[in-house]
């Protein structure tokens, strides 16, 4: 599903954000990326989303070679990926409902069909009652959950999440992870950037450890006793 093959990312100022990263995630796999801030977690997610192009190496996601992707392919590529952004990236002049419906509208879903899916997604994150609210009226945690609903509404084949539980209390974090695991069970590939060590420990998933742009460790889940 996602394949990094000696991928490096150097910015124009010479700073090397990622160097020689290689790993592969298959269908239905759930992995964490962890590391200190500045370790390259966000850059790695940006590469998968085609927000940045790799400087060297091969990067294939969803069967698309992201080194040779054209501008028109980028939009198509992003539609297959649900992304939860650290800073939510919500539209403040649209209601919660319209925010979550945006990916469906872009793909041209029928209004009836879209409504069903939007409500199902909002229900999953416990915000069904807030569908008419505007993002500014919501707490940070609620905004984050709107972002999560938007990421999953289109039933993407890949879900990327950048600190999705950063603003959530442990109980809600567990809820969100349960939603993610539901998607994992139907074959969605998930990559979650987080530095919530307790959460990572508890979920016992594959964990990629980044440090200074290098892949320090690729920890497989502990065998369940």
């Amino acid at each position, binding site marked *: 599903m996602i394949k990094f093959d000696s991928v490096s990312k150097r910015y124009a100022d010479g700073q090397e954000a990622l160097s020689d990263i290689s790993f592969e995630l298959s269908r239905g796999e759930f992995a964490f990326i962890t590391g200190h801030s500045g370790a390259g977690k966000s850059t790695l997610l940006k590469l998968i989303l085609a927000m940045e192009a790799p400087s060297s190496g091969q990067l294939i996601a969803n069967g698309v070679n992201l080194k040779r992707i054209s501008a028109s392919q980028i939009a198509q590529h992003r539609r297959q990926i649900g992304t939860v952004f650290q800073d939510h990236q919500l539209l403040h002049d649209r209601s919660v409902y319209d925010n979550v419906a945006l990916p469906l509208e872009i793909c041209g879903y029928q209004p009836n069909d879209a409504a069903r899916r939007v409500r199902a997604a909002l229900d999953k994150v416990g915000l069904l009652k807030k569908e008419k609210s505007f993002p500014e009226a919501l707490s940070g945690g609620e905004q984050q959950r709107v972002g999560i609903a*938007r990421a999953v509404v289109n039933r993407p084949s890949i879900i990327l999440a950048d600190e999705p539980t950063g603003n959530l209390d442990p109980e809600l974090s567990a809820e969100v992870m349960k939603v993610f695991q539901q998607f994992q069970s139907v074959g969605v590939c998930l990559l979650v950037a987080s530095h919530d060590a307790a959460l990572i420990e508890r979920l016992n998933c594959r964990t990629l450890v980044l440090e200074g742009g290098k892949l320090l460790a690729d920890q497989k889940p502990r065998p369940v006793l």
Partner: protein
Amino acid sequence: MSATKRRTANSDQARPKRNTRKGQTESFTDLFRLHQRIANASAKRLAQTPASSLITLFVVAVALLLPALLFGLNNNLASLLSSFQDSAQVTVYLQDDVSEIAGQGVSDNLLTRSDIENAYYVSASQALNEFSAASGLEDLLLEMTANPLPGAIVLTPANVSPAAVDDLAAQLRELPEVDVVQVDSLWLQRLAAISNLAGVIGSVLTVIVILGLFFIVGNTIKLAIENRKAEIRVIKLVGGSDMYAARPFLYTGLLYGLGGGILATILQAFVLITFNSNLEVLMQLYDSDFRLRGFGFMSALLIVIVGALIGWSAALMASLRHIRAINP
């Protein structure tokens, strides 16, 4: 909810999904509804900033009005010109020694020519009678022993273009019975040249105005995009194409063009009314009932369509360029 709506909702559940991908847009009706929604949103956005929207509309309208007026006035001039040309006459004065019978014969001969529409003979005595009646100098003329006026043939050329009339006049001068051929085509030529010039100025002005409109609408759209940069960034992040992000702005451009066009036709009507009330006074002095005619429904429609097209395409160019530049 209407009965039909409910029925389609039910049948949706009852019938298995047709071979569309993930329930994507199936019909033009859905597409139409989507566009209607975007158009409504664009209109609402314009209404949220009424002052600046109105100013832009007004600028677009005035820009469209200038060439429209020039073309309209020129059309009036051209129709005035052709009404003169229809009655363009060539007067052929015959030699003094041509008798009435011979003169009538010459006139009849001319009628057989294909380049002459109509010809009638005015004998010397007829001419004298008409002149005395028109001039009021009957008494004086009665005292004259000889008629000083020649016989004449008044003819209407079939082809009224200045070149053809000149050509015809040259041929008529060759006839032995003919003394003088008088063609009043010079002023017609001048008027035609003025009308042509007005047409050329109109065309040049139109090109300039179209360019200007592109800049006006393009710049307005550019500012609108600048104001909604964050929104466009989010749309691009969740997979919206540039064209998808551009759609609301295309409607904004279309609305500016459409609204500006409609406003231009209204302004044009006002200009016409003002002109005509003043023209009436002038034309009464000339004993003419000439009026500026309205430029008609079709030309009003043309202004609106041209405005809408320019607005839309300017928005297309501006939005694709500026939206492409926004990288999430």
